[in-house]
């Protein structure tokens, strides 16, 4: 009986400690939240997926235009 009671007491003390720690931890984590001072970070453009294609297209168009001019000149 005595042992059982001691176990119950120590268990409730332990539960109490756990609860107190959890409450304190929650309070600390609230205080430790990052300061609210937002900064805008504009998304950068780093991909030029069709850069090669565009250059090739421009080159071909320039060639075609050149042929056209040459043809017209004849």
């Amino acid at each position, binding site marked *: 009986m005595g042992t059982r009671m001691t176990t119950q007491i120590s268990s409730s003390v332990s539960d109490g400690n756990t609860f107190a720690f959890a409450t304190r931890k929650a309070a600390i984590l609230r205080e*430790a*939240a*990052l300061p609210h*001072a*937002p*900064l805008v*970070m504009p998304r950068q*453009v780093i991909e030029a*997926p069709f850069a090669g294609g565009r250059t090739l297209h421009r080159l071909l168009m320039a060639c075609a235009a050149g042929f056209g001019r040459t043809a017209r000149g004849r």
Partner: protein
Amino acid sequence: MIRTTSSGGALSARAFALLVSVGLGAGAAALFLQFGAADGYQVVDGVRAALVFITTFWLAWGAMQSVEGLISARRAPPPLVTPITTRTAILMPVYNEDPAVVFARVAAMDDALTRLGLAAHFDFAILSDTQDERVGAEEERWFVHLWDDRAQDARLKAGKKARFFYRRRPRNTGRKAGNIQDFFETSGAHYDFALILDADSLMEGETIAEMVRRMQAAPRLGLLQTLPRITGARSRFGRAMQFAAGFYSPVFAQGQAAMQGVTGPFWGHNALVRVRAFAESCALPELSGPPPFGGHILSHDYVEAALLARAGWSVRLDPDLTGSFEEGPQNMIDFAKRDRRWCQGNLQHVRLLSAPGLRAWSRFVFFQGILSYIAPLFWVMFLASNLYATATAPEPDFFPEPFQLFPVFPSDQTSKAVGVAVGVFGLLVLPKVLILLDAIIRGRVEGFGGRFMALRGMLSELLMSSINAPIMLMWQTRAVLQVLMGRDGGWPAQTRGDGQLTLPDAFAAGWWIQLWGGAVIFLTRSLAPDLMLWVLPIGVPLVLAPLVIWASSQPSAPPLFLTPEETCIPQVIADHRRIVTLWTGSAPAAPASAADAVEVTA
């Protein structure tokens, strides 16, 4: 030290290095072509010569960095004493790490700043991306411990604001780059500068203060990178790497600083950034398409440095800034795992070579990073093409003309191939020898145990890296092929600890390398026995791979590979060890000390 290399100085340094490297590559290729074509020119001779050009150029480029470093070395300037008028956030990103050990680093750095009377200018933010709930709960528990240890309740009661912050993201979107970006978007406007660390980073208070003062003095400086020294190594592999990083890296970094000018590197940690510059220029998008070439950018640091430079900010590496530390992998398996991630990240940069508006040097840095992982493939191709060329070499024709009276012996060009081999070996060894001589002249060897110990360290490291190189080559080749085949390596957490492997662990990681080693030796014996002597230095380490992996992970202690940080433990490292012991009741896994040589700086 190079504070701001003029653009003219950087350009001439680059031109010099490029010219010499191309010249050496072309010379080696020409010699090898003469050797290969001695029995008549075949296509494979041209292929071999091209491979010799690429590999020799790459080695020469590395060697030139050390030469540039030796030429441009200057005495470090006296530290600045200007008052600190800015606020800096010290960011510690964590991802499934041991919180007690990591948070003790925060406490040690706070102690270092407090000793200088500068703590009020710095806040610490622990930015957790931990996805393991159990580790997350431990982090919260240890943060309470840190909070109490740093007396934050008393600070709040005194009406002051807390200096320690903790935030855990439920999802690690964008990985480390996303973690840092989230901080800037939440709290960036509160700070002028941010010191970005890794979970294993430690920095002396003096170093942090000097970095802030340098950034205050240079309004266009967007990022200031330090050269972190590796500490805490305990295995043979780890300590050899720690020695190499401590002994050679300062010279290579000096050379890099001379060549890059203000388009410097960012290595992702132990660097100070100007918050406004970083926020303006460094929000990374996801690359289109699936990983490994699309998705989140893995090697984000290189890209962020390039974006800062694109926006007109200076990015500088100051190799004279000491007191910056990190930890390295303890064994070859952990090294290969990290390398797999870096490989995928660097190869992903192929998508960014044509990014709009980048500086030419930034594009070159991407190219260099890609080449550093593709280079092993060229070595493998060189080995294979030599086997093929020898196996298919035509029989010598002593009587090429009809009715010829006397035989014509083909001209022996072997000496030219030997010359190329000696030259390649020289490119590997010469920088190390020059650095040793420089260290003797400048007295830098004292921190490494004196001339004899430094020489012994150099020779041992050379031997170890020669044995490890073929094994690393196999791992790198596999990593490149996996990425090219579209396999995503993910984002594994870093392995910390002593890293000691068992033989079964080593065998599990290295059996396939052993098989390749056996195949290389067998093929050489069958197809080109004349090449056996040349192939054995590669084949034998491959066959012994599990043994090499296991043996190199075993504990090692000074005096071999002694470093200045072992000779005289820096204060912040000693404080970290003391705090871990105090908090956990057990000392952190520390390297075996250099017996009576070890002392703590006052």
